[in-house]
């Protein structure tokens, strides 16, 4: 087996394949970064919405809760197909990458909103009362008092989620998006040894998620000491 690897390696690592793998890695990274950024933004919005007690926002709150509770319970693959079959007829010509990215955002918003919500809820009520009596507005309270104190509760599960999420994007291959996993499959189909093809893909996934794990460990340490 080892001999076959040595034999194939020069052919495998040619310019064309390297570009192909980098592009696939870019798509995996793109889906993760877009998904998590959008997910964080809307997740924060939903978390804040669910915490507010304003009666006027009641209908929105109900929709948000229904959305979060549903999308946290459907397998990602099913979300992918739902989005595909909803978007296809509405916006024909949308790229598969676009469809996968929308799915990814739907999923991450639901999960991150719960992670952020538990962070916001970890801040003691006294902190909020202190801010209210000093005339802080709702947004000032959120950004100056509540969020800064929630990070230490939010960061560890949020980064764990992102790392898991990088792996989950591989399901987009089922739709035909040429991300890392699909790229590996195609290379193997072209006749390269699976050990070599998927071995390289494995290293790529590792290269994407390992720095994130390190960052998380660093942030956790910093937040705990401050």
């Amino acid at each position, binding site marked *: 087996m080892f001999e076959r690897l040595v034999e194939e390696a020069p052919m495998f690592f040619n310019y064309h394949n390297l570009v192909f793998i980098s592009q696939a890695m870019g798509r995996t990274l793109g889906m993760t970064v877009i998904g998590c950024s959008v997910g964080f933004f809307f997740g924060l919005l939903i978390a804040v919405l669910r915490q507010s007690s304003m009666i006027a926002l009641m209908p929105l709150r109900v929709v948000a809760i229904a959305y979060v509770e549903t999308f946290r319970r459907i397998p990602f693959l099913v979300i992918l197909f739902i989005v595909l079959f909803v978007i296809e007829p509405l916006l024909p010509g949308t790229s598969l990458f676009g469809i996968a990215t929308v799915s990814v955002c739907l999923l991450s918003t639901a999960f991150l909103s719960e992670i952020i919500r538990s962070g916001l809820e970890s801040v003691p009520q006294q902190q909020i*009362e202190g801010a209210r009596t*000093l005339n802080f507005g709702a947004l000032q309270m959120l950004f*100056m008092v509540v969020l800064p*104190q929630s990070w230490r509760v939010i960061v560890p599960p949020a980064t764990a989620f992102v790392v898991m999420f990088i792996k989950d994007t591989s399901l987009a291959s089922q739709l035909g998006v040429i991300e890392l996993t699909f790229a590996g499959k195609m290379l193997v189909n072209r006749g390269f040894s699976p050990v070599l093809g998927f071995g390289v893909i494995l290293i790529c996934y590792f290269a994407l998620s390992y720095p994130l794990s390190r960052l998380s460990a660093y942030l956790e340490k910093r937040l705990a000491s401050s």
Partner: protein
Amino acid sequence: MHHLEIKDLCVSYDKDPVLKGVTLSSDKGEVVSLIGPSGSGKSTLLRALIGLTPPSQGQVFVGGEAIDYFSRRSLRTLRGEMAIVFQQYNLFQNMTVLRNVSIAPIKIQKRSRSDAEKEAKSLLEKVGMADKQDAYPEELSGGQQQRVAIARALATRPEILLLDEVTSALDPERVNEVLDTIRGLTSAGITMIIVSHEMAFVREISTRVAMMDDGQIVEIGPPSQIFDAPEQRRTRDFVSKILKH
């Protein structure tokens, strides 16, 4: 006209009445202390006054203006004139001492940073915490945190200061440093409503003392009356029990 006037104030928690019609007024610069057993509604009265627990009935006037506790604007005006110090200090854990004291003047009252920080430093000086201005609350003892909390409340330049059992969570050794700080404020012309179990302190600092029981004021009068010659039996029982210790 009284500086602070409370008329027939009622508060209920889940339909359970906690304050049952409290009427109390205070002139400018007066120090009114509330005493009474736990659960008599002293803290609830303070929380209702600053709008943390909205009253179900009754009226509050500050400087002759009626407060509408269900209007944001009215609450904003109220909290611009009134400040509270909590039993648990409630300092912002993510900010240094200096930031805790200066954030409301800078961000809420829109005063200039240099001005607000200068005033914050002089307030910290006054409560004896100037050397800790860069520390975080969790690095301080309870008494130190409470002194910072008093400086934070004063930084918004309130006309009325509510003190809610500010020494109850402290080690006995730390109580005096906080009481000394409050003593230093009485000459500043700030109207103070104090809830305290430190009877010697209440007697010394108050212009009037109100005895509360079961959500009502049972008796109100100068400290000499309440502590030496109470008219109501309930007051007499309470005071004799407390002073025996």
